[in-house]
């Protein structure tokens, strides 16, 4: 199946030829105009990221008058569908921003260019552990842009009022659960519950697994846990939910990925699990008291959390200008001026040198995030390799199966077995 990209499909080829002959012309897919090399670059993000990216692109075009960069962006969910359609249509943009979970699929299907072959693209300053997450079958298909890590965002003011001891770097899952029980029980929290239900989050489950010495996927791309592990996790979450330490199903189901629609964003809980980068979104809602705590560690002190590449840059295997694409990615990742313009808009930069430059200049909540990350420097284990192909839908499946548990339509064990069955089918094991 792999490497079979020349024969995309006889049906699709039929479409191509028929459509081609009907019009007598084919699109040239946006080549150069007037000797200028033209590259298309897409990413997901918000207007702030758009403005900074645009500024960086202008600088690059100034330095390379022969290269013209056309940029485009969309929100994350719609971006994924759009990029998949473009890729399936043989029309992937020259340079694209990619998610951890897209790398394996896109690389093994021959959509991505092997960037390792392009010496224009320097990788010496990028964290080695992060760099490895962009490697598939020994080839560097994508480069990490920035790093993020999970966090417990919480309202420290309420926490203090409730008399609950502040989180530490070494608190265990039991400590966390105790804190949540106390928060929910306290009058100071005015009816708000301790936390979001971790049961719906595959991300938190992964960290819980890692803190017990296991992993989501093994090195040979198989499931790294059993139905028993998942049952134990979901039974634990169910106990907490029934005790009222975490929010009920009615709150969990309203989460849509945005900060605003989390229980903490709706002021229904005192804390929330999330990646660190989006937590700045809590600031206008929660106010001054907003703080970031590390995730709990295993009973033996094993940390589960890790620095995850928050996003990657990759280039299309079909690009007419691989050299220029590599130059452009190099500029975005390694150029000091570009780094200063981009700041932390894609997360704390993965390039060590740029990170040192950027950190002191960060403003507002970005400063809090960088301080949060700093305490882990050198203490965390390497990130796992990019999730295997077929994993794309499993995150949804995970929360969907837990929905069945939290609405009490299935027992944790039934749902866990369901998940394992579906996961194995998706991973083709």
């Amino acid at each position, binding site marked *: 199946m792999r490497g079979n990209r020349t024969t995309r499909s006889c*049906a699709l080829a039929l479409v191509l030829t028929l459509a081609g002959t009907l019009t007598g012309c084919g699109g040239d897919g946006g080549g150069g105009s007037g000797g200028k090399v033209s590259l298309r670059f897409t990413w997901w993000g918000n207007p702030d990221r758009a403005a900074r990216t645009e500024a960086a692109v202008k600088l690059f075009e100034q330095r390379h008058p022969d290269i013209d960069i056309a940029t485009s962006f969309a929100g994350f969910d719609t971006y994924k569908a759009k990029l998949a359609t473009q890729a399936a249509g043989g029309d992937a943009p020259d340079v694209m921003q990619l998610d951890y979970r897209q790398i394996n699929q896109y690389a093994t299907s021959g959509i991505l260019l092997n960037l390792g072959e392009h010496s224009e693209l320097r990788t010496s300053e990028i964290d080695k552990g992060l760099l490895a997450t962009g490697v598939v079958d020994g080839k560097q298909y994508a480069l990490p842009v920035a790093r993020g890590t999970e966090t417990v965002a919480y309202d420290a003011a309420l926490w203090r009022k409730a008399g609950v001891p502040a989180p530490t770097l070494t608190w265990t899952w039991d400590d966390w659960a105790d804190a949540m029980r106390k928060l929910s029980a306290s009058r100071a929290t005015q009816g708000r519950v301790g936390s979001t239900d971790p049961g719906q989050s595959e991300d938190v489950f992964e960290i819980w697994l890692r803190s017990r010495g296991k992993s989501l996927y093994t090195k040979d791309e198989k499931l790294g846990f059993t139905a028993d592990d998942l049952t134990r996790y979901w039974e634990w979450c169910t106990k907490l939910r029934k005790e009222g330490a975490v929010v009920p199903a009615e709150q969990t189901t309203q989460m*849509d990925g945005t900060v605003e629609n989390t229980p903490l964003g709706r002021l229904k809980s005192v804390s929330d699990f999330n990646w660190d980068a989006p937590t700045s979104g809590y600031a206008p809602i929660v106010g001054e008291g907003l703080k970031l705590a590390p995730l709990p560690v295993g009973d033996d002190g094993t940390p589960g959390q890790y620095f995850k590449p928050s996003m990657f840059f990759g280039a299309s295997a079909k690009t007419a200008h691989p050299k220029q694409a590599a130059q452009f990615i190099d500029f975005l990742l390694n150029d000091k001026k570009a780094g200063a313009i981009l700041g932390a808009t894609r997360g704390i930069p993965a390039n060590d040198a740029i990170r040192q430059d950027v950190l002191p200049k960060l403003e507002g909540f970005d400063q809090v995030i960088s301080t949060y990350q700093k305490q882990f420097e050198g203490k965390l284990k390497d990130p796992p390799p990019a999730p295997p192909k077929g994993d794309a839908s499993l995150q*949804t499946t995970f929360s969907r199966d837990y929905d069945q548990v939290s609405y009490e339509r299935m027992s944790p064990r039934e749902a866990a077995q369901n998940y394992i069955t579906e996961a194995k089918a998706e991973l083709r094991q």
Partner: protein
Amino acid sequence: MTATATRPPDAAPPATGGKRARKRERQGAAWVFLSPWVLGAAVLTLLPMAVSLYLSFTDYDMFDAPRWIGFRNYTQMFTEDPRYWRSVLTTLTYVVIAVPLQLLLALAVAIALKSVKRGKGFYRSAFYAPSLLGASMSIALVWRAIFNDGGSVDNLLSGMGIDIGGWINKPGWAILSVALLTIWQFGAPMVIFLAGLQQIPAELYEAAAVDGASWWRQFRSITIPMLSPVLFFNLVLQMIQAFQVFTPAFAVSAGKGGPADSTLVYTLYLYDRGFTASHMGYASAMAWALLLAIGVVTAVLFRTSRAWVFYANDNNEGAR
């Protein structure tokens, strides 16, 4: 959907001097009128449909070449995927609630507006206003707020002693809030009804009034039969669209089909399989199963339409 083409030529109205040449001229004329449609149907519709039919027999992840697997997608769908059947059930629930209520409301308001003399334009615009919005993200957020626990609907109902809580996060109620979003946007069928009402010749009512027919009698023997082609159109199209409902469910559940899969309607699940899970072959099979199901229901509707749909030019059997 019957083979009108096979009817004998003498079924055509007796034209004055209806000769063969004239018939051939009209044949040619028909194809001239049809030419844009034929081009569009062939290139932009038939071709993609053929591809998707082919893909429904393959394992296709959108990235690698499709692999022929015969009826595997279909058998998996019908026999191994409980979520598929749940989505069928959810969709049927939605269709049964949304279609009749939306059509009734649209028809009632259209007929009421027909009787209104003053402020007609205002009413028409105001009733259409919700339909201008589509199921955008902002209206979805409004919907979620109104039907949330402690939202307006909850407050109103608890004030009346009915305690349901939030609709959008109760598995039994969420699909109802989705259906209500569709019903609320009844502007399209309403406008079509209004246009249909306008087309009824006023003389019919005048004559009936002279005969002393009551309002109800006029409604039954003039309005309904004269409106029946439009009623039929609305019924068929709203039904087809309801089976394919996507945006309201996507918007209200933020694309997840929750709580507990209770708003995971057919097309939403299809989208999930195709674009989230990259099983485009499976999604194509789902699409074709849906096409067949809708086709059967539509064919039944077309059959029954002969009994109750009245066409003014009924000597021409028309395009059934």
